[in-house]
């Protein structure tokens, strides 16, 4: 026992332990530095973000499912912005065409799940001719996975319109986004007819399209 305590309290032994710990830590840092290559040419949020102009009052944040939505029947905020290539895109205006507006964040797993469903749905010819489908590329973050969002849209073969939100996610705020994916359906008169958060399967997208076109949903 005396030997044990003497060894445990031996200062040289402790020094050796500290040195061994420092050596292990040094080795870990060395391996980490040598095994990681960081690129300086990465796009930042500022590079990607748009500068949309928004007219009209902000909508209230979309309520939880099952609760009445006070924004139904209100005029949609009108947004003049651009896509990732700088081409002008607008949402919310009364163009005489319905609008299915989907708010997507490239890092969001649910959006990553939803986008291929939407692409397939469009490819099946289920988007009516009198309805526009517009993705709002929002909640931009260059430190989160799946960055930048434009690469994601290309990779998923999404060929409909995209409008890019700004750094503060002003479009999302104006439309009352709570979480992504988020759908806002605007009728041909520019009036909000539906808002919902979550993944929408193709059958629900059919219903959104009918609402956007200003048609009654078939009774089931």
């Amino acid at each position, binding site marked *: 026992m005396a030997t*044990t305590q003497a060894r445990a309290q031996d200062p040289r032994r402790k020094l050796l332990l500290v040195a061994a710990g420092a050596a292990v830590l040094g080795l*870990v840092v060395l391996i980490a530095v040598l095994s990681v290559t960081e690129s300086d040419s990465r796009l930042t949020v500022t590079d990607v973000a748009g500068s949309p102009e928004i007219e009209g009052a902000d909508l209230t944040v979309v309520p939880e499912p099952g609760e009445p939505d006070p924004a139904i029947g209100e005029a949609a905020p009108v947004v003049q912005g651009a896509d990732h290539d700088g081409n002008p895109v607008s949402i919310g205006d009364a163009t005489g065409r319905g609008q299915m507006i989907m708010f997507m964040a490239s890092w969001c797993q649910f959006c990553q799940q939803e986008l291929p469903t939407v692409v397939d749905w469009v490819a099946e010819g289920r988007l009516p001719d009198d309805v526009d489908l517009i993705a709002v590329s929002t909640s931009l973050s260059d430190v989160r996975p799946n960055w930048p969002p434009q690469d994601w849209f290309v990779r998923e073969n999404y060929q409909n319109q995209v409008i890019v939100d700004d750094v503060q996610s002003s479009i999302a705020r104006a439309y009352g986004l709570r979480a992504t994916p988020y759908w806002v359906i605007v009728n041909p008169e520019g009036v909000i007819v539906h808002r919902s958060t979550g993944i929408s399967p193709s059958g629900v997208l059919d219903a959104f399209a009918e609402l956007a076109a200003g048609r009654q949903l078939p009774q089931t």
Partner: protein
Amino acid sequence: MVAVVERIAGLLSLLTLGLIAYLIVALLRRQVPAIVRQDLALPLATLIAFGATAGSLFFSEVAGYTPCVLCWYQRIAMYPLVIVCGVAVLRRNANVLTTVLPITAIGASISIWHIMVEQRPALGGMCDSQAPCALKWINEFGFLTLPTMALIAFVAISLLVIAARQPNTVSTNSL
């Protein structure tokens, strides 16, 4: 620099996993060496808690990884362990088991739930744009996410404080 720190965190977590494996075997065989019990267990537990605390602060304050609600709960469990274990080292008090284990048990439980949310995002609801719980900020070596690293730290700290209390069954001469 952030990627390097992520890799360091990943490598240290792997080392800690090795430590956990060693401690489990040693505890099951009731053969924890005296040097581990007397010299290493509590300082290592303090170092692991300190590393986890420093890492979490680096990732939120420097890397800009916004902590989600579950991250905060794990932080609440991890941060006091630096003080609790640190004071135990200074006072040479191996009787911190009853203080540390409830904290690490709560922290580990939250980490396990967080890992489940990462694997099945629907458990955590849709993507809160500010701080989504399902987002894997880090995924080193394909499995070491932030809550996985936290779980490893909580388990290692638990085993170390248990090891520090083990009765003296192996003399240092056997090392």
